[in-house]
């Protein structure tokens, strides 16, 4: 679902957008956009003058209509951007439908209440095939949950009490088993509510760069207002006074209507693009900050490497055959359901042909992994097999008077130095050998880090591994830096330190202990599977819980700014051609020599003015897809990017209107419109 591209022109959205475009003519709403507000005032003035009569009615009528179209097209662009969000919001609303919840009262009895009556702190019981009534934290139980209403992902996910997967979202459905949930949100404040508000753009506030750009555009509008208003006295002085229709046309063509009309659509579409990637940004500010990020903190596990280490080889101690070692390793892991444990069984089977054995026949006693012993293993037929971290096993051995043989010791070091994790296997208090667990770096990560580097972003890998291991993986993955043996406090210090140097930091996190760092980071993307605390601390939530997504978030942030910058440049560059269309048209009647400036060879003064106005209106429509999709972003250095965009939107912005206005002029003269 995440990558499914929506068509730009969906008829349902277009229909609604046309209606919304008309509603947006309300001057109160237009005032937020100074550029288009000026166009609307201009349209009102020309409309009023139209009814006063006078000559050239046909021309004046066409000008007036196209001025209105200019306003409507801009409104339509905004409505289109909002429409895409609204369609999504409608789907979400269905998920929010009223359900009946089983609230557990303090005395242990349950009562049925509508989900809208639930308050934060209530405890509810949700059984299989029931909807989870509101956001909450699981108190008891394990269940598979269908979260497709929110993430679009149809595969169910496991949610369980305790740990980092204990948060549930209202509107999702329990598929099997049951959950006892403590509600954490009040009605109207749930995740779903916030999500609906966000995609609808109801809460949209202008972002800092958008405000700055708006000021620039308003300033330019005032400059052009001055240039056009004072042109009339100059025209009178020159004996060639102009009609209001022509002056308003010139003004509307000059002020940056292209970017002014598309500005809010670009902002809404940027947020929408994030939603398409299943990322919810809590504010537009966060999206912009993402484009500015200097440092990316990435957790090693799950982001840079595949979630789990895998057994790569068995190294046997002197005097132990490979088969003995593999046998012990396999036995110790048969009951070990962790991915590492399973990979040991797989390796034993593939490399040494050892098949899985049914241990029920033997009197097997499994020793589970505990945080205290940090070993696991099995007691079977008088054999006491253990596997575990080096220090744990050597402590276990030394308690019984033996130690690690030198050869084992050196094998351990070799493995650690290469970035692997050594697990020592011991049988009956004797070290048999070492299992080499290896981190598998995800495919394509190196390329992505190279791209990030080209964009000027530094990547830092965060890992709990020792520095040796961390360095090896960092080298393999191609990250710029790493933080080994990282504690939450180390992470925090790293972020603070980067920020002190003026850098912006982005990170992902899911656990409760990530929460402070997520809050401190400029862009904190919380995983949807994460705890409530993490989700509240971050300023974005990734519904797919894919930590690599941070890279896309950065790109979307950049793309948002670039689209604004590119269209601003395009809009201003367009003015050159418009001057060459309108100025000679205004004065060539009195001074035929000024036709020298009519380098496009436009037919008549009227067709020239009209063509410029029509071009100015149509270009808004033509650029809606670009505004909604964003300009193409390629990871490259700023200088190369600017050169490229200056060519396309600066130089292109000068050339395109010359061609466009000329074509329109040919069409309308052929059609007898002017």
């Amino acid at each position, binding site marked *: 679902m995440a990558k499914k591209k929506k068509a730009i022109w969906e008829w349902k959205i277009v229909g609604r957008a046309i209606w919304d475009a008309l509603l947006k003519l309300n001057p109160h709403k237009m005032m937020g956009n100074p550029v288009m507000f000026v166009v609307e005032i201009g349209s009102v003035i020309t409309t009023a003058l139209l009814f006063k009569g006078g000559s050239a009615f046909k021309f004046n009528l066409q000008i007036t209509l196209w001025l209105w179209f200019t306003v409507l097209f801009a409104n339509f662009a905004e409505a289109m951007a909002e429409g895409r969000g609204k369609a999504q919001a409608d789907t979400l609303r269905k998920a929010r439908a009223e359900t009946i919840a089983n609230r557990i009262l303090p005395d242990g009895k349950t009562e049925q209440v509508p989900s809208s009556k639930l308050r934060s702190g209530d405890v509810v019981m949700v059984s299989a095939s029931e909807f989870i009534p509101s956001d909450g934290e699981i108190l008891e139980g394990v269940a598979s949950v269908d979260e497709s209403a929110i993430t679009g992902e149809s595969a169910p996910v496991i949610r369980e009490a305790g740990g980092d997967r204990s948060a549930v979202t209202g509107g999702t459905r329990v598929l099997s088993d049951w959950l006892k949930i403590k509600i954490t949100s009040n009605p109207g404040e749930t995740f779903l509510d916030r999500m609906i508000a966000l995609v609808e753009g109801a809460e949209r506030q202008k972002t800092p760069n958008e405000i700055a750009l708006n*000021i*620039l555009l308003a*300033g330019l509008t005032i400059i052009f207002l001055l240039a056009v208003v*004072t042109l009339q006295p100059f025209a009178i002085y020159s004996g060639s006074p102009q009609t209001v229709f022509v002056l308003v046309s010139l003004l509307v063509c000059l002020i940056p209507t292209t970017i002014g009309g598309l500005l809010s659509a670009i902002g809404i579409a940027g947020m929408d693009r994030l939603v398409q990637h299943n990322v919810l940004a809590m504010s537009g500010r966060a999206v*912009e900050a993402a484009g500015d990020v200097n440092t990316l903190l990435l957790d090693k596990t799950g982001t840079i490497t595949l979630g789990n280490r895998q057994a790569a080889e068995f190294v046997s101690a002197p005097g132990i055959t490979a088969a003995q070692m593999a046998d012990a390793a396999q036995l110790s892991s048969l009951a070990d359901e962790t991915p590492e444990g399973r990979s040991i069984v797989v390796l034993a089977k593939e490399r040494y042909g050892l098949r899985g054995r049914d241990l029920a026949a033997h009197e097997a006693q499994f020793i589970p992994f505990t945080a205290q012993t940090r070993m696991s293993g099995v007691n079977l037929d008088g054999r006491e097999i253990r596997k575990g971290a080096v220090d744990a096993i050597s402590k276990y051995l030394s308690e019984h008077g033996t130690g690690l043989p030198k050869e084992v010791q050196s094998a351990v070091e070799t493995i650690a130095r290469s970035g692997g994790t050594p697990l020592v296997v011991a049988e009956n208090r004797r070290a048999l050998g070492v299992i080499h667990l290896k981190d598998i770096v995800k495919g394509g990560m190196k390329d992505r880090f190279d791209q990030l580097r080209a964009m000027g972003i530094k990547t830092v890998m965060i890992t709990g591994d020792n520095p040796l291991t961390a360095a090896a993986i960092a080298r393999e993955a191609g990250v710029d830096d790493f933080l080994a043996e990282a504690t939450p406090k180390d992470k925090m210090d790293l972020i603070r330190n980067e920020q002190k140097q003026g850098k912006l930091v982005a990170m992902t996190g899911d656990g409760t202990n990530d929460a402070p760092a997520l809050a401190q980071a400029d862009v904190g993307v919380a995983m949807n599977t994460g705890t409530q605390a993490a989700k509240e601390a971050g300023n974005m939530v990734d519904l797919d819980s894919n930590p690599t997504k941070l890279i896309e978030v950065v790109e979307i942030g*950049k793309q948002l*700014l670039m689209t604004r910058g590119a269209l*601003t440049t395009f809009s201003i560059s367009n003015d050159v051609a418009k*001057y060459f269309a309108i100025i000679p048209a205004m004065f060539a009647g009195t001074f035929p020599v000024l036709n*020298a400036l009519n380098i496009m060879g436009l037919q008549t003064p009227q067709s020239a003015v009209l063509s410029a106005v029509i071009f100015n209106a149509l270009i808004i429509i033509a650029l809606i897809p670009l505004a909604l999709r964003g300009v193409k972003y390629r990871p490259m250095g700023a200088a190369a990017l600017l050169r490229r965009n200056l060519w396309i939107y600066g130089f292109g912005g000068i050339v395109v209107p010359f061609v466009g206005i000329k074509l329109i002029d040919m069409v309308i003269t052929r059609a007898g419109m002017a």
Partner: protein
Amino acid sequence: MTVNGWIQILVFLGLIFLVTKPMGVFMARVFSREKTFMDPVLRPIERLLYRVTGVDENHEMRWTEYAVSMLLFSVVSMLVLYLMQRLQGFLPFNPQKFGAVTPEHLAFNTAASFTTNTNWQAYAGEATMSYFTQMAGLAYHNFVSAATGIALAIAFIRGIARRQMQTIGNFWVDLVRSCLWVLLPFCVVGALLLVSQGVVQNLRPYDKATLVQPQQVQTTGADGKTVTTTVTEQTIAQGPVASQEIIKEFGTNGGGFFNANSAHPFENPTPLSNLIELFAIFTIGAGLTYTLGRMTGSQRHGWAVWTAMAILFLAGVTVAYWAEAGGNPLLANTNQRVTALQSGGNMEGKEVRFGIANSALFATVTTDASCGAINGWHDSFTPLGGMVPLVNIMLSEVIFGGVGAGMYGMLIYVVLAVFIAGLMVGRTPEYLGKKIEAYDVKMAMLVVLVFPLVILVFTALSSVNGFGTSSILNPGPHGLSEILYAFTSGAGNNGSAFGGLTVNTPWYDTTIGLTMLAGRFLMIIPMLAIAGNLAQKKYVPPSLGTFPVTTPLFTVLLIGVILIVGALTFFPALSLGPILEHLLLAAGRTF
């Protein structure tokens, strides 16, 4: 155009290139209060000045205090100059026994003009001002208004360079150091060089010379009768010219001692004095680009800005030189070619000793900077040749620019260029590690708005009302150019006159006076606000994702922004002025 002409132009640019670094390093040291070789002489004087005036030289000012100090100083200086003109008759050094400068609006206009470093002159110096007013009033302002401009540019540079600080320096210290270290020593040397070329320096009454060949002059009296008089004697004005001449250029003031300004043989007698004057105009402006690089730690950025200026300069001088060397198309039957005996081209209103190249160069340089000194009449240039100085001023005189004013004007464009570029590379725009945000853009736009506001509005009012049009000497588009040039020159604090407009009228004296004040102070306040705001900001280290402000691409972008902002604002007005006049000239109509 001749090879000789181009060599002169390129030699001039080469000299400016050579002086950039030493001047820039020197100014950076002076304003960072580091040791310079002049300290043994100047430090005692500086300390004495502070002791007398009660200035604490270690006190640092926020931008608001800096602005208030600068405004107070300017207001008081302006009042003093006004009173000095009005009380001229009672003051010493007045061998010609000039009375008070009248009318009041002329005195106001002149006071505003010299306070704002404009030196717009609605009077003729040798017929209006006593030596005392020239020296203690006008020359004083030539120094302090230039020093104020330099101080402001340095304050702005500090704003960029400083990190998380509230202050941008001390106005009084910057002012004093500008005068003592930068302006005075160079002026002493420069004045002596000019004297060596024949520029006069005395306090004598005007000389009388008997004409070898008496001239018959016909004048039309108020009653309409033509009176013929025979002139046998010529008055030759004198004065302390050299001392005022050098600061006129070095401080980009431009106010001539004589009405004929640098076309007058006592102000600018030889081609060498012409070169010295041209050189003086650009020295500080060019040096400040190096100071910018040095103080902000990005020397290549300083050179990138320098290059943008140099390219715009060359573009201007090329058009002006080409247009003037081309001559007048209506005189096709006349020999306008360059020969050993004549300069060729359009020599109307130009000095023979300077010729086409040096006149076009001077017109370009004086308007690239906000100097306003002239050595030929811009009014008599061809329409396109005359448009070059006009457009130069409209671009805010940022091509090396007025002392200080050119630098901070350019930095406003840099802020805008960086803002657009930053967006286009997908980052919050940064300039030398400082984020450019809404507040900075707002203030930059306020600066940019001042020009169209005063120039276009006042020109529009003057072009359709009797009080404006009655001053025009030439009809048609040329008349519009004359009004447009007057207000543009005022707003740009240039001070050069196109001519052809009677400006000593209540309307023009007052409105141009206001235009000059707006063009100076309305720009300075938002500019200082940006400086103060930038100084407070955190430094963001540059990365590959940051748009570099040191590359040729940046130079191109900066030029683009300057041209686009200027062209879009003024194209309609220009199309009815010089452009229309040019096209009509080709069609055989003149004005």
